[in-house]
Protein backbone atom coordinates (compact mmCIF):
# COMPACT_ATOMS: atom_id res chain seq x y z
CA UNK A 1 0.00 0.00 0.00
CA UNK A 2 1.50 3.32 -1.02
CA UNK A 3 1.72 6.12 1.54
CA UNK A 4 -0.95 8.05 -0.33
CA UNK A 5 -3.31 5.07 -0.34
CA UNK A 6 -2.65 4.43 3.35
CA UNK A 7 -3.27 8.05 4.27
CA UNK A 8 -6.48 8.22 2.25
CA UNK A 9 -7.87 4.96 3.67
CA UNK A 10 -10.60 5.32 6.26
CA UNK A 11 -8.22 4.76 9.18
CA UNK A 12 -5.47 6.84 7.53
CA UNK A 13 -7.77 9.82 7.17
CA UNK A 14 -8.82 9.55 10.77
CA UNK A 15 -5.18 9.35 11.85
CA UNK A 16 -4.49 12.56 9.95
CA UNK A 17 -7.56 14.14 11.51
CA UNK A 18 -6.48 13.07 15.01
CA UNK A 19 -2.85 14.07 14.52
CA UNK A 20 -3.56 17.52 13.08
CA UNK A 21 -6.09 18.09 15.88
CA UNK A 22 -3.66 17.00 18.58
CA UNK A 23 -0.91 19.21 17.13
CA UNK A 24 -3.22 22.22 17.37
CA UNK A 25 -4.24 21.23 20.88
CA UNK A 26 -0.73 20.65 22.22
CA UNK A 27 1.28 23.29 20.36
CA UNK A 28 -1.32 26.01 20.12
CA UNK A 29 -4.33 25.73 22.41
CA UNK A 30 -2.41 24.92 25.59
CA UNK A 31 0.22 27.69 25.23
CA UNK A 32 -2.44 30.12 23.98
CA UNK A 33 -4.56 29.42 27.04
CA UNK A 34 -1.56 29.83 29.33
CA UNK A 35 -0.73 33.18 27.73
CA UNK A 36 -4.26 34.51 27.65
CA UNK A 37 -4.87 33.72 31.29
CA UNK A 38 -2.19 36.32 32.10
CA UNK A 39 -4.83 38.90 31.15
CA UNK A 40 -6.43 38.26 34.53
CA UNK A 41 -3.22 39.49 36.23
CA UNK A 42 -3.36 43.00 34.87
CA UNK A 43 -1.95 45.18 32.06
CA UNK A 44 1.74 45.01 32.99
CA UNK A 45 2.02 41.24 32.96
CA UNK A 46 -0.23 40.77 29.91
CA UNK A 47 1.47 43.44 27.79
CA UNK A 48 4.86 42.16 28.81
CA UNK A 49 3.84 38.61 27.81
CA UNK A 50 2.69 39.85 24.39
CA UNK A 51 5.89 41.86 24.01
CA UNK A 52 8.15 38.93 24.85
CA UNK A 53 6.13 36.59 22.63
CA UNK A 54 6.79 38.91 19.70
CA UNK A 55 10.52 38.85 20.42
CA UNK A 56 10.39 35.23 19.32
CA UNK A 57 9.28 36.03 15.76
CA UNK A 58 10.81 32.95 14.06
CA UNK A 59 9.12 30.65 16.57
CA UNK A 60 5.80 32.47 16.25
CA UNK A 61 5.89 32.30 12.45
CA UNK A 62 6.92 28.65 12.60
CA UNK A 63 3.98 27.85 14.86
CA UNK A 64 1.65 29.90 12.67
CA UNK A 65 2.68 27.99 9.57
CA UNK A 66 2.31 24.69 11.41
CA UNK A 67 -1.17 25.73 12.58
CA UNK A 68 -2.15 26.76 9.07
CA UNK A 69 -1.03 23.38 7.75
CA UNK A 70 -2.74 21.51 10.57
CA UNK A 71 -6.04 23.30 10.23
CA UNK A 72 -6.02 22.78 6.46
CA UNK A 73 -5.37 19.04 6.84
CA UNK A 74 -7.87 18.83 9.69
CA UNK A 75 -10.63 20.49 7.66
CA UNK A 76 -9.97 18.58 4.43
CA UNK A 77 -9.97 15.25 6.28
CA UNK A 78 -13.03 16.20 8.32
CA UNK A 79 -14.98 17.08 5.18
CA UNK A 80 -13.90 13.86 3.46
CA UNK A 81 -14.78 11.71 6.47
CA UNK A 82 -18.13 13.41 7.14
CA UNK A 83 -19.17 13.33 3.47
CA UNK A 84 -18.22 9.64 3.17
CA UNK A 85 -20.18 8.91 6.35
CA UNK A 86 -23.25 10.76 5.09
CA UNK A 87 -23.06 8.67 1.92
CA UNK A 88 -22.57 5.40 3.79
CA UNK A 89 -25.54 5.80 6.14
CA UNK A 90 -29.06 5.31 4.84
CA UNK A 91 -31.00 8.42 5.75
CA UNK A 92 -34.35 6.63 5.70
CA UNK A 93 -33.32 4.49 8.66
CA UNK A 94 -35.59 5.22 11.63
CA UNK A 95 -32.67 4.42 13.89
CA UNK A 96 -32.67 5.69 17.46
CA UNK A 97 -29.31 6.27 19.03
CA UNK A 98 -28.51 4.79 22.42
CA UNK A 99 -27.21 6.68 25.43
CA UNK A 100 -23.74 5.66 24.28
CA UNK A 101 -23.76 8.28 21.53
CA UNK A 102 -22.82 11.55 23.19
CA UNK A 103 -24.14 14.93 22.13
CA UNK A 104 -20.52 16.02 21.71
CA UNK A 105 -19.94 13.22 19.18
CA UNK A 106 -23.09 14.10 17.25
CA UNK A 107 -22.13 17.77 17.17
CA UNK A 108 -18.54 17.31 15.94
CA UNK A 109 -19.12 18.73 12.43
CA UNK A 110 -21.22 21.62 13.78
CA UNK A 111 -18.81 22.50 16.57
CA UNK A 112 -15.92 22.19 14.12
CA UNK A 113 -17.46 24.66 11.68
CA UNK A 114 -18.29 27.00 14.58
CA UNK A 115 -14.67 26.90 15.73
CA UNK A 116 -13.51 27.78 12.22
CA UNK A 117 -15.86 30.78 12.12
CA UNK A 118 -14.59 31.75 15.54
CA UNK A 119 -10.94 31.56 14.49
CA UNK A 120 -11.57 33.90 11.54
CA UNK A 121 -13.45 36.35 13.76
CA UNK A 122 -10.85 36.10 16.52
CA UNK A 123 -7.99 36.82 14.11
CA UNK A 124 -9.85 39.86 12.74
CA UNK A 125 -10.55 41.01 16.30
CA UNK A 126 -7.05 40.83 17.66
CA UNK A 127 -4.38 39.86 15.17
CA UNK A 128 -5.32 42.06 12.25
CA UNK A 129 -6.39 45.02 14.31
CA UNK A 130 -4.68 48.31 14.84
CA UNK A 131 -2.85 48.37 18.15
CA UNK A 132 -1.73 51.34 20.17
CA UNK A 133 1.87 51.51 21.25
CA UNK A 134 3.04 52.34 24.74
CA UNK A 135 6.45 52.60 26.31
CA UNK A 136 7.08 50.38 29.31
CA UNK A 137 9.01 51.42 32.40
CA UNK A 138 12.07 49.65 30.92
CA UNK A 139 11.77 51.82 27.82
CA UNK A 140 10.51 49.02 25.55
CA UNK A 141 8.06 49.93 22.83
CA UNK A 142 5.20 47.53 23.30
CA UNK A 143 1.65 47.20 22.10
CA UNK A 144 -1.04 47.87 24.64
CA UNK A 145 -2.86 44.61 23.96
CA UNK A 146 -4.49 44.76 27.38
CA UNK A 147 -6.31 47.96 26.43
CA UNK A 148 -7.27 46.41 23.10
CA UNK A 149 -8.94 43.43 24.81
CA UNK A 150 -10.77 45.75 27.20
CA UNK A 151 -11.93 47.95 24.34
CA UNK A 152 -13.27 44.97 22.37
CA UNK A 153 -15.45 43.67 25.17
CA UNK A 154 -16.42 46.53 27.45
CA UNK A 155 -19.97 47.67 26.87
CA UNK A 156 -20.48 45.09 24.14
CA UNK A 157 -22.55 42.19 25.52
CA UNK A 158 -23.22 40.84 22.02
CA UNK A 159 -19.52 40.44 21.36
CA UNK A 160 -19.09 38.80 24.75
CA UNK A 161 -22.00 36.43 24.09
CA UNK A 162 -20.44 35.50 20.74
CA UNK A 163 -17.16 34.57 22.41
CA UNK A 164 -18.79 32.58 25.21
CA UNK A 165 -21.09 30.72 22.80
CA UNK A 166 -18.19 29.74 20.59
CA UNK A 167 -16.23 28.55 23.63
CA UNK A 168 -19.14 26.18 24.29
CA UNK A 169 -18.45 24.77 20.82
CA UNK A 170 -14.79 24.36 21.83
CA UNK A 171 -15.89 22.48 24.97
CA UNK A 172 -18.07 20.10 23.00
CA UNK A 173 -15.45 19.58 20.30
CA UNK A 174 -12.54 18.88 22.66
CA UNK A 175 -14.50 16.66 25.06
CA UNK A 176 -15.14 14.18 22.24
CA UNK A 177 -11.98 14.83 20.25
CA UNK A 178 -9.40 14.09 22.93
CA UNK A 179 -10.67 10.63 23.84
CA UNK A 180 -11.71 9.78 20.29
CA UNK A 181 -8.23 10.53 18.94
CA UNK A 182 -6.73 8.10 21.46
CA UNK A 183 -9.04 5.31 20.28
CA UNK A 184 -8.02 6.13 16.69
CA UNK A 185 -4.35 5.73 17.65
CA UNK A 186 -5.27 2.32 19.01
CA UNK A 187 -5.29 3.24 22.70
CA UNK A 188 -8.37 1.44 23.93
CA UNK A 189 -11.01 3.82 25.30
CA UNK A 190 -13.61 1.62 27.00
CA UNK A 191 -17.34 2.08 26.64
CA UNK A 192 -18.76 2.39 30.12
CA UNK A 193 -17.53 4.72 32.82
CA UNK A 194 -14.21 5.20 31.08
CA UNK A 195 -11.73 7.36 33.02
CA UNK A 196 -10.24 8.47 29.70
CA UNK A 197 -13.64 9.80 28.61
CA UNK A 198 -14.04 11.59 31.93
CA UNK A 199 -10.58 13.18 31.75
CA UNK A 200 -11.24 14.16 28.13
CA UNK A 201 -14.46 15.91 29.15
CA UNK A 202 -12.81 17.65 32.11
CA UNK A 203 -9.84 18.87 30.06
CA UNK A 204 -12.05 19.94 27.13
CA UNK A 205 -14.63 21.81 29.16
CA UNK A 206 -11.98 23.13 31.57
CA UNK A 207 -10.08 24.63 28.67
CA UNK A 208 -13.23 26.12 27.14
CA UNK A 209 -14.21 27.62 30.50
CA UNK A 210 -10.73 29.08 31.04
CA UNK A 211 -10.83 30.75 27.64
CA UNK A 212 -14.36 32.03 28.30
CA UNK A 213 -13.37 33.62 31.62
CA UNK A 214 -11.09 36.10 29.83
CA UNK A 215 -13.76 38.01 27.82
CA UNK A 216 -16.14 37.77 30.79
CA UNK A 217 -13.46 39.32 33.00
CA UNK A 218 -12.74 42.02 30.41
CA UNK A 219 -16.47 42.79 30.24
CA UNK A 220 -17.07 43.17 33.97
CA UNK A 221 -13.97 44.96 35.25
Amino acid at each position, binding site marked *: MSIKKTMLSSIGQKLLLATSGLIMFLLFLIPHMGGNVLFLFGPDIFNSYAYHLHQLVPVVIGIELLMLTSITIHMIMAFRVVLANRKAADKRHTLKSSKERSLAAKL*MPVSGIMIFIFIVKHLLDFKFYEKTEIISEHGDHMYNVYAMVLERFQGDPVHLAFYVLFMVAVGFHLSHALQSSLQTYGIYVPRDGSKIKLVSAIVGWGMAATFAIIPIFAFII
Partner: protein
Amino acid sequence: MAKQINLTLKVWRQNRGQEGKFETYEAKNIDTDASFLEMLDVVNDELTLKGIEPIAFEHDCREGICGCCGSTVNGKTHGSHERTTLCQLHMRHFEDGQNVVIEPFRATAFPVIKDLIVDRSGLDQIIAEGGYVSVKTGNAPEASTTPIKKEMAEAAMDAAECIGCGACVAACPNGSAMLFTSAKVSQYALLPQGHPERAQRVKNMVGKMDELGFGNCSNEYECAVACPKGIDVKNIARLNREFIKASLTSEK
Protein backbone atom coordinates in the same frame (compact mmCIF):
# COMPACT_ATOMS: atom_id res chain seq x y z
CA MET B 1 -49.22 -19.16 31.43
CA ALA B 2 -48.49 -17.44 28.21
CA LYS B 3 -50.67 -14.52 27.29
CA GLN B 4 -51.77 -13.53 23.86
CA ILE B 5 -51.27 -10.02 22.55
CA ASN B 6 -52.27 -8.02 19.49
CA LEU B 7 -49.84 -5.72 17.72
CA THR B 8 -49.94 -3.25 14.88
CA LEU B 9 -46.95 -3.78 12.60
CA LYS B 10 -45.51 -1.21 10.25
CA VAL B 11 -43.34 -3.28 7.95
CA TRP B 12 -40.99 -2.14 5.19
CA ARG B 13 -42.00 -3.73 1.85
CA GLN B 14 -39.68 -3.46 -1.11
CA ASN B 15 -38.76 -5.36 -4.22
CA ARG B 16 -35.24 -5.20 -5.58
CA GLY B 17 -34.65 -2.18 -7.74
CA GLN B 18 -37.94 -0.58 -6.72
CA GLU B 19 -38.83 2.05 -4.15
CA GLY B 20 -40.08 0.63 -0.89
CA LYS B 21 -42.67 1.79 1.60
CA PHE B 22 -44.11 0.91 4.98
CA GLU B 23 -47.28 -1.22 5.05
CA THR B 24 -49.44 -1.68 8.14
CA TYR B 25 -50.55 -5.14 9.23
CA GLU B 26 -52.31 -6.43 12.33
CA ALA B 27 -50.61 -9.23 14.27
CA LYS B 28 -53.44 -10.95 16.15
CA ASN B 29 -53.38 -13.43 19.03
CA ILE B 30 -49.62 -13.61 19.31
CA ASP B 31 -48.40 -15.95 22.02
CA THR B 32 -45.99 -14.06 24.31
CA ASP B 33 -43.76 -17.16 24.41
CA ALA B 34 -43.28 -16.90 20.65
CA SER B 35 -40.10 -15.45 19.24
CA PHE B 36 -40.16 -12.37 17.05
CA LEU B 37 -39.63 -14.47 13.92
CA GLU B 38 -42.43 -16.85 14.96
CA MET B 39 -44.68 -13.82 15.25
CA LEU B 40 -43.72 -12.89 11.67
CA ASP B 41 -44.48 -16.50 10.63
CA VAL B 42 -48.00 -16.14 12.08
CA VAL B 43 -48.51 -12.83 10.30
CA ASN B 44 -47.21 -14.32 7.04
CA ASP B 45 -49.68 -17.24 7.32
CA GLU B 46 -52.52 -14.75 7.53
CA LEU B 47 -51.14 -12.62 4.69
CA THR B 48 -50.86 -15.71 2.50
CA LEU B 49 -54.49 -16.66 3.19
CA LYS B 50 -55.53 -13.12 2.25
CA GLY B 51 -53.60 -13.41 -1.00
CA ILE B 52 -50.96 -10.86 0.06
CA GLU B 53 -47.33 -11.72 -0.56
CA PRO B 54 -45.72 -12.73 2.75
CA ILE B 55 -43.07 -10.52 4.33
CA ALA B 56 -39.61 -11.69 3.27
CA PHE B 57 -37.16 -11.96 6.14
CA GLU B 58 -33.90 -13.85 6.49
CA HIS B 59 -33.50 -16.59 9.07
CA ASP B 60 -31.73 -19.87 9.53
CA CYS B 61 -30.77 -21.36 12.88
CA ARG B 62 -33.23 -19.38 15.03
CA GLU B 63 -30.98 -19.96 18.00
CA GLY B 64 -28.85 -16.84 17.80
CA ILE B 65 -25.67 -18.27 16.32
CA CYS B 66 -25.89 -18.10 12.54
CA GLY B 67 -26.12 -14.36 11.92
CA CYS B 68 -28.86 -14.61 9.30
CA CYS B 69 -31.68 -12.80 11.01
CA GLY B 70 -31.82 -9.15 11.89
CA SER B 71 -34.10 -6.18 11.39
CA THR B 72 -34.39 -2.78 12.94
CA VAL B 73 -37.35 -2.97 15.32
CA ASN B 74 -38.68 0.32 16.70
CA GLY B 75 -35.44 2.04 15.80
CA LYS B 76 -33.19 -0.53 17.44
CA THR B 77 -31.20 -3.25 15.71
CA HIS B 78 -32.42 -6.74 16.68
CA GLY B 79 -35.01 -4.88 18.80
CA SER B 80 -32.19 -3.90 21.15
CA HIS B 81 -32.24 -6.38 23.95
CA GLU B 82 -28.71 -6.70 25.17
CA ARG B 83 -26.82 -9.51 23.44
CA THR B 84 -29.93 -10.87 21.70
CA THR B 85 -30.49 -11.61 18.04
CA LEU B 86 -33.93 -11.00 16.57
CA CYS B 87 -34.74 -14.74 16.59
CA GLN B 88 -34.04 -14.85 20.31
CA LEU B 89 -36.18 -11.81 21.05
CA HIS B 90 -39.46 -12.94 22.57
CA MET B 91 -42.89 -11.40 22.32
CA ARG B 92 -43.16 -11.10 26.10
CA HIS B 93 -41.10 -7.93 25.74
CA PHE B 94 -43.97 -6.29 23.85
CA GLU B 95 -47.16 -4.74 25.21
CA ASP B 96 -50.64 -5.59 24.01
CA GLY B 97 -51.71 -3.06 21.39
CA GLN B 98 -48.16 -1.80 20.77
CA ASN B 99 -47.09 -0.36 17.43
CA VAL B 100 -44.03 -2.11 16.08
CA VAL B 101 -41.99 -0.61 13.23
CA ILE B 102 -39.91 -3.22 11.40
CA GLU B 103 -37.40 -2.27 8.74
CA PRO B 104 -34.29 -3.79 7.20
CA PHE B 105 -30.73 -3.26 8.47
CA ARG B 106 -30.18 -0.13 6.45
CA ALA B 107 -26.84 1.11 5.15
CA THR B 108 -25.70 2.17 1.72
CA ALA B 109 -23.44 -0.89 1.60
CA PHE B 110 -26.46 -3.11 2.44
CA PRO B 111 -28.86 -2.73 -0.51
CA VAL B 112 -32.33 -4.18 0.07
CA ILE B 113 -32.94 -7.46 -1.74
CA LYS B 114 -36.55 -7.77 -0.66
CA ASP B 115 -38.56 -6.38 2.25
CA LEU B 116 -36.44 -7.04 5.35
CA ILE B 117 -33.66 -8.91 3.55
CA VAL B 118 -30.54 -6.93 2.73
CA ASP B 119 -27.47 -7.91 0.78
CA ARG B 120 -24.71 -8.29 3.35
CA SER B 121 -22.26 -9.94 0.97
CA GLY B 122 -19.98 -6.94 1.53
CA LEU B 123 -19.08 -8.51 4.87
CA ASP B 124 -18.21 -11.77 3.08
CA GLN B 125 -16.01 -9.84 0.68
CA ILE B 126 -14.12 -8.33 3.62
CA ILE B 127 -13.65 -11.84 5.04
CA ALA B 128 -12.39 -13.10 1.68
CA GLU B 129 -9.61 -10.50 1.83
CA GLY B 130 -7.88 -12.23 4.71
CA GLY B 131 -10.07 -14.49 6.79
CA TYR B 132 -7.74 -17.44 6.38
CA VAL B 133 -4.42 -18.72 7.72
CA SER B 134 -1.49 -20.54 6.18
CA VAL B 135 -1.10 -24.03 7.57
CA LYS B 136 1.67 -26.59 7.53
CA THR B 137 0.98 -29.31 5.02
CA GLY B 138 1.66 -32.95 5.78
CA ASN B 139 0.73 -34.72 8.96
CA ALA B 140 -1.28 -32.88 11.56
CA PRO B 141 1.13 -31.35 14.07
CA GLU B 142 1.03 -32.30 17.72
CA ALA B 143 -1.76 -30.25 19.28
CA SER B 144 0.36 -28.47 21.86
CA THR B 145 3.24 -27.58 19.54
CA THR B 146 2.24 -23.92 19.55
CA PRO B 147 1.73 -22.58 23.06
CA ILE B 148 -0.98 -19.94 23.34
CA LYS B 149 -1.58 -17.92 26.49
CA LYS B 150 -5.00 -18.49 27.95
CA GLU B 151 -5.79 -14.76 27.94
CA MET B 152 -4.93 -14.53 24.25
CA ALA B 153 -7.00 -17.57 23.39
CA GLU B 154 -9.95 -16.10 25.27
CA ALA B 155 -9.59 -12.66 23.66
CA ALA B 156 -9.43 -14.34 20.24
CA MET B 157 -12.55 -16.35 21.07
CA ASP B 158 -14.34 -13.18 22.16
CA ALA B 159 -13.56 -11.63 18.79
CA ALA B 160 -14.48 -14.83 16.96
CA GLU B 161 -17.94 -14.72 18.51
CA CYS B 162 -18.94 -12.27 15.78
CA ILE B 163 -21.66 -13.89 13.67
CA GLY B 164 -21.50 -11.26 10.92
CA CYS B 165 -25.16 -10.25 11.26
CA GLY B 166 -24.43 -6.64 10.29
CA ALA B 167 -26.20 -5.03 13.26
CA CYS B 168 -23.05 -2.95 13.91
CA VAL B 169 -23.21 -1.50 10.40
CA ALA B 170 -26.93 -0.77 10.68
CA ALA B 171 -26.59 0.78 14.15
CA CYS B 172 -23.64 2.96 13.15
CA PRO B 173 -24.62 6.54 12.31
CA ASN B 174 -21.95 6.32 9.60
CA GLY B 175 -22.79 2.87 8.20
CA SER B 176 -19.30 1.73 9.16
CA ALA B 177 -18.17 -1.89 9.29
CA MET B 178 -15.29 -1.20 11.68
CA LEU B 179 -16.58 -3.39 14.52
CA PHE B 180 -17.09 -6.34 12.18
CA THR B 181 -13.71 -5.89 10.47
CA SER B 182 -11.97 -5.34 13.80
CA ALA B 183 -13.40 -8.58 15.18
CA LYS B 184 -12.16 -10.51 12.16
CA VAL B 185 -8.72 -8.89 12.19
CA SER B 186 -8.40 -9.38 15.96
CA GLN B 187 -9.32 -13.02 15.96
CA TYR B 188 -6.30 -13.76 13.75
CA ALA B 189 -3.95 -11.13 15.14
CA LEU B 190 -4.31 -12.55 18.63
CA LEU B 191 -3.25 -16.05 17.68
CA PRO B 192 0.15 -17.16 16.38
CA GLN B 193 -1.52 -19.05 13.54
CA GLY B 194 -2.71 -15.74 12.09
CA HIS B 195 0.70 -14.09 12.05
CA PRO B 196 2.09 -14.99 8.61
CA GLU B 197 -0.62 -12.88 6.87
CA ARG B 198 -1.02 -10.42 9.73
CA ALA B 199 0.08 -7.18 8.05
CA GLN B 200 -1.37 -7.93 4.65
CA ARG B 201 -4.66 -9.06 6.16
CA VAL B 202 -5.41 -5.81 7.96
CA LYS B 203 -4.51 -3.67 4.97
CA ASN B 204 -6.57 -5.77 2.56
CA MET B 205 -9.59 -5.96 4.82
CA VAL B 206 -9.58 -2.21 5.53
CA GLY B 207 -9.03 -1.52 1.82
CA LYS B 208 -12.01 -3.69 0.88
CA MET B 209 -14.16 -2.15 3.61
CA ASP B 210 -13.45 1.34 2.21
CA GLU B 211 -13.93 0.23 -1.38
CA LEU B 212 -17.40 -1.19 -0.63
CA GLY B 213 -18.64 2.15 0.69
CA PHE B 214 -18.83 1.43 4.40
CA GLY B 215 -18.40 4.61 6.45
CA ASN B 216 -15.64 5.75 8.79
CA CYS B 217 -15.58 5.07 12.50
CA SER B 218 -16.29 8.16 14.60
CA ASN B 219 -15.89 6.30 17.90
CA GLU B 220 -19.49 6.69 18.96
CA TYR B 221 -19.72 3.05 20.07
CA GLU B 222 -23.30 2.47 18.89
CA CYS B 223 -22.02 -0.70 17.22
CA ALA B 224 -20.95 -2.25 20.50
CA VAL B 225 -24.35 -1.50 22.06
CA ALA B 226 -26.08 -3.12 19.09
CA CYS B 227 -23.87 -6.22 18.86
CA PRO B 228 -25.83 -9.34 19.85
CA LYS B 229 -22.53 -11.07 20.65
CA GLY B 230 -21.05 -8.32 22.81
CA ILE B 231 -18.07 -7.63 20.53
CA ASP B 232 -16.21 -4.82 22.26
CA VAL B 233 -14.72 -1.62 20.80
CA LYS B 234 -11.41 -2.86 22.23
CA ASN B 235 -11.21 -4.69 18.90
CA ILE B 236 -11.51 -1.40 16.97
CA ALA B 237 -8.56 -0.01 18.95
CA ARG B 238 -6.67 -3.19 18.07
CA LEU B 239 -7.62 -2.85 14.39
CA ASN B 240 -6.27 0.71 14.41
CA ARG B 241 -3.02 -0.49 16.02
CA GLU B 242 -2.70 -3.34 13.54
CA PHE B 243 -3.29 -0.95 10.65
CA ILE B 244 -0.71 1.56 11.90
CA LYS B 245 1.84 -1.19 12.51
CA ALA B 246 1.23 -2.80 9.12
CA SER B 247 1.46 0.54 7.33
CA LEU B 248 4.75 1.38 9.02
CA THR B 249 6.42 -1.99 8.68
CA SER B 250 5.20 -4.06 5.75
CA GLU B 251 6.38 -3.24 2.27
CA LYS B 252 3.50 -4.28 0.07
